[in-house]
């Protein structure tokens, strides 16, 4: 247990990630309202993006733009840009997923007139 506390204090970003991820999963699994399910899913996806960004952070490092390449490059001065690039793509994927899912929700709502999962399942049978 003390070991866990130590990890949590040293790496607060992991704690934030875990809270966001599990919170999103909890909302997705327990709420009958399908829009709330989507909100939970989006929080869950965002938490993975958050995690990706945090692993690139470095103390004392700055944006990865070379200002003076002639004198050699010191990697300690720059954060790793790759996770940000991955993040950008992942966010685009998430937005597309959200678009498709909202279109589905709209189609369901137009047909059933309800957002409650149990009500929808009952009416669509």
């Amino acid at each position, binding site marked *: 247990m003390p070991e866990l506390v130590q990890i949590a204090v040293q790496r607060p970003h992991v704690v934030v990630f875990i809270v966001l*991820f599990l919170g999103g*999963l909890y909302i*997705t699994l327990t709420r009958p309202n*399908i829009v709330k*399910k*989507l909100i939970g*899913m989006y929080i*869950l*996806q965002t938490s*993975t*993006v958050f*995690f*990706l960004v945090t*692993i690139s952070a470095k103390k004392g490092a700055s944006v990865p733009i070379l200002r003076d390449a002639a004198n050699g490059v010191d990697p300690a001065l720059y954060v790793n840009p*790759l*996770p940000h690039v*991955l993040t950008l*793509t*992942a966010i685009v*994927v998430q937005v*597309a*997923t959200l678009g*498709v*899912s909202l*279109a*589905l*929700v709209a*189609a*369901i709502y137009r*047909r059933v007139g309800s957002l409650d*999962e149990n009500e*929808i*399942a009952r009416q*669509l*049978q």
Partner: protein
Amino acid sequence: MTAHLPILVLLATIVPAVCMPLLGMKNRAWCRPVALASLWLMSLLSVATFIAVYQDGPIPYALGGWEAPVGVAWLVDGPGALMVVSLGIVVSLSMTASGPRSPAPGASVVPYYALILLLVSGATGIIFAADLFNVFVFLEVAALAGYALAATGGGPALMAAFRYLILGSLGASLYLLAIAYLYAATGTLNMADLAIRLPPLLDSRAVLAGVSFMFIGLGIKSALVPFHGWLPDAYTHAPEAVTPVLAAVVTKVVLFTWIRIMFWVLGAGVEVQAAHILDVLWILGAAGAVVGALLALSQRDLKRMFALGGISHIALTLVGVGQGNQTGLVGGLFYLVNDAFMQAGLFVLAGAAIHKYGVRTWDDLGKLRAQAPWLVGALIVIATSMVGLPPTGGFFGKWYILLSALEAGNYLAVAAVAIATVLTLAYFIKLFEAIFRGPRAVEGAETPTLPLSFKLAVSGFLVGIVGFGLISDSVVAFLLQTTSGLNL
């Protein structure tokens, strides 16, 4: 020319997919011919790729000329080339079989064909990608198209597609998380580099977590048994022309990627914290093979029965792969390719039975005997392969899977395959009993005729299934040769 074949295979479907809305604005009647033409073109190109790989070995491809550490790497190896050929031909045949009025009533034509093409291009990208993140991007391209296609049936299909979307997104998030873990541990996402850097790090907890998340994420997407909840509803309610495509593409390709990551990246002998990863795999596979077939046996809905049977057949692949010897890996891959033909053919027939002959419930199946002898004959051939009788491809796939289990001395796996085979036989007997002993149609009811394109396409499936059995020798020899470098 051969050097650029991989990208041409992708472009053959992704360009028409993106242009489809423009084409639809001009003239809607062109959508179907253009979609079919590009699918068949893609099949031809993939066959050419396969021939090139067969003759000269794997084709590496650097997108845009940027080589591996900086750019996105693709690699077309033997199993990948075979997989793409089966993907192209199966989807082309399924689309040819579904008549001109194939989209569900109410669904518009333009997005429908655009989505089918997008699904195929996404799957092509998954197979070719040699970079974990590139796999993720194409996984989502294919998955988004899949969600939208599953919803085109309307009504109950909407909710089924919504569940599919939620679970699929959860799987994708877990996969992305796994990428983050593996990247943090190794500093690379290229599969070839990972294969060098990962094995010494397998004791690290970050890598263990990454591999577990990847397993669960891809497991959800490929409907492995504890995670298969989304599949039966999504397949059952999808329109007749969509189910074969979904069944042949989504789960198979994801499973193929998982096999590739497991054997080509992690290394087959990998032990994670004393638990052998392949043991987990074959146990899940054995459980899935039996449970899927049992669930299928208890169904009275044609498409749902086939969907659950499909889960059992995917699991059989895992039993072979999980034995950790070359026979098993080759048997599993062979079965995977062959299963794409069987599943798609089965759903094409089911779609025709339901929409052409109005077989709504189990009791209507008797109609088929008198009205559609042709369809019943085709069903018998596919059933032969599903159960695993010679000379079909299904027999040889199962044969190699059984051989590998015996080679590994794994009698539990042998028993699971045997039980799954008996259960498969049982649900097909149940099906044929309903067809041959069910009440006939009312006298004087007109018999709908099947279009020639449908008959040709179904013949294509049958030729594929029986042909795979007849040439199984050379296919297996080819797969053995391409997987010989794996130190199994």
